[in-house]
């Protein structure tokens, strides 16, 4: 019998792994020696970084959503049938339809999701742009905003660690060039001792905050929101008044992970170099759902997917494990409406962001379109 690979999750990580496997194992897959089955919760693929642009009316649904089948190599079998149980010992995944998918190798790429309901009052009192519906609601709120204090509050843990800063600078650019100039103030809160996890980014961002007159408070972990009084409370004891609250809600992994007993809060204990689930060499974990202490980002996911796919191809063709992941992360950072910078780092190399420029901003906009090539495993 041929080797069976099951991939759970048709997002960034799962799709890149599937397409790279189809490229690297084309002959084996055509002969039927290798089967790749993908289980996806949806028949659509969503480019999540687009949500931030949706909030500003700069991207539309059609640009960020495609049919999953259309970006998947035809050799990959797609089942739009969410996984409900992973049986690691029995090497089988059960889908919602009741169908079982036995595997020799499993790739888990079920991502992360926001859980605003975990903070009292957050759902009622806050806006966010971490899902499409929230981004559209925020777009409306920004359009209707008539002035006052906008608070951007960051929860733990969350994906795309630069998005909160980006959105702050973009709002400031938007409103400082409008009739609202002088009628609004921005207030940014962050859970740790500085305004961003990456020290050089924090250093640069504080200077930009001071230049733009953006207020901030660090060591601020959201405890609760009082939507009646329009107040935000921190676990550290402060209270901030707001007129418009934009929160980055805390995240969890997919319910499937906890339901299958694979990791608290849906984060799977994963070897940071081999990307296999701890203690299980035939189970690869990529993207947001790992518990590796690095940024949960599409770029991280992409580099991890490259590593996992190469390892799987190597295991199947040569019987040897492939390359090791070095912790590489690369993130574009919008520093306003028309400038951007980028930052990259890995387990051994600290980040060192460059001067913001218009060119990098354009490159990020270009990447918003190039993403579809990345997902196909071409870029």
């Amino acid at each position, binding site marked *: 019998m041929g080797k069976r690979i099951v991939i759970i999750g048709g997002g960034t990580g799962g799709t890149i792994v599937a397409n790279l496997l189809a490229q690297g194992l084309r002959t084996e897959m055509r002969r039927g020696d290798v089967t790749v089955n993908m289980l996806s919760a949806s028949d659509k693929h969503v480019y999540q970084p687009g949500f931030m642009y949706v909030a500003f009316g700069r991207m539309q649904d059609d640009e960020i959503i495609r049919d999953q089948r259309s970006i998947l190599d035809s050799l990959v079998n797609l089942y739009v049938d969410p996984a409900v149980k992973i049986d690691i010992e029995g090497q089988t995944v059960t889908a919602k339809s009741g169908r079982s998918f036995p595997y020799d190798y499993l790739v888990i790429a079920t991502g992360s999701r926001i859980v605003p309901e975990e903070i009292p009052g957050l759902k009622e009192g806050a806006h966010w742009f971490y899902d499409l519906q929230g981004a559209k609601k925020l777009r409306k709120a920004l359009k209707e905003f008539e002035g006052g204090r906008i608070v951007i509050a960051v929860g733990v843990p969350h994906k795309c660690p630069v998005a909160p800063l980006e959105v702050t600078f973009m709002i400031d650019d938007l409103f400082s060039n409008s009739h609202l100039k002088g009628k609004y103030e921005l207030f940014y809160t962050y859970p740790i001792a500085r305004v961003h996890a990456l020290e050089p980014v924090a250093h640069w961002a504080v200077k930009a905050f001071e230049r733009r007159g953006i207020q901030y408070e660090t*060591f601020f*972990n959201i405890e609760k929101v009082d939507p009646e009084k329009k107040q935000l409370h921190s676990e550290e004891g402060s209270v901030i008044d707001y007129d418009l609250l934009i929160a980055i809600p805390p995240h969890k992994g997919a319910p499937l992970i906890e339901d299958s007993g694979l990791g608290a809060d849906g984060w799977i204990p994963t070897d940071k170099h081999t990307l296999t689930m701890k203690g299980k060499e035939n189970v690869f974990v990529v993207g947001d759902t790992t518990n590796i202490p690095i940024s949960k980002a599409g770029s991280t996911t992409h580099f991890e997917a490259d590593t996992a796919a190469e390892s799987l191809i190597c295991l199947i063709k040569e019987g040897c494990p492939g390359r090791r992941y070095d912790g590489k992360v690369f993130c574009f950072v919008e520093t306003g409406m028309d400038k951007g910078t980028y930052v990259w780092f890995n387990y051994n190399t600290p980040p060192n962001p460059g001067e913001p420029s218009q060119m990098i901003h354009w490159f990020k906009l270009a990447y918003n379109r190039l993403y579809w090539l990345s997902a196909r495993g071409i870029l």
Partner: protein
Amino acid sequence: MDAAINTSVDARDSYCPGPLMELIRTMKREPVGSVIEILSSDQGSAKDIPEWIHKVGHEYLRTEEKEGFWSILVKKAK
């Protein structure tokens, strides 16, 4: 002697989100009274973590410097 450690988080070589963010994430799901160890190779975090523990009102137990990294112990108090 150290209190029995209930959970240990290895955040060495982590620039982003970094050791304190990993600790905050872990503390959220641990029960009150649980002792958490955080390993960090970042000098700044060795200072920031005890400061945050005091600020938020958990119980800071100790910091121990090892070879190229720090081990910090905290007890969840609320």
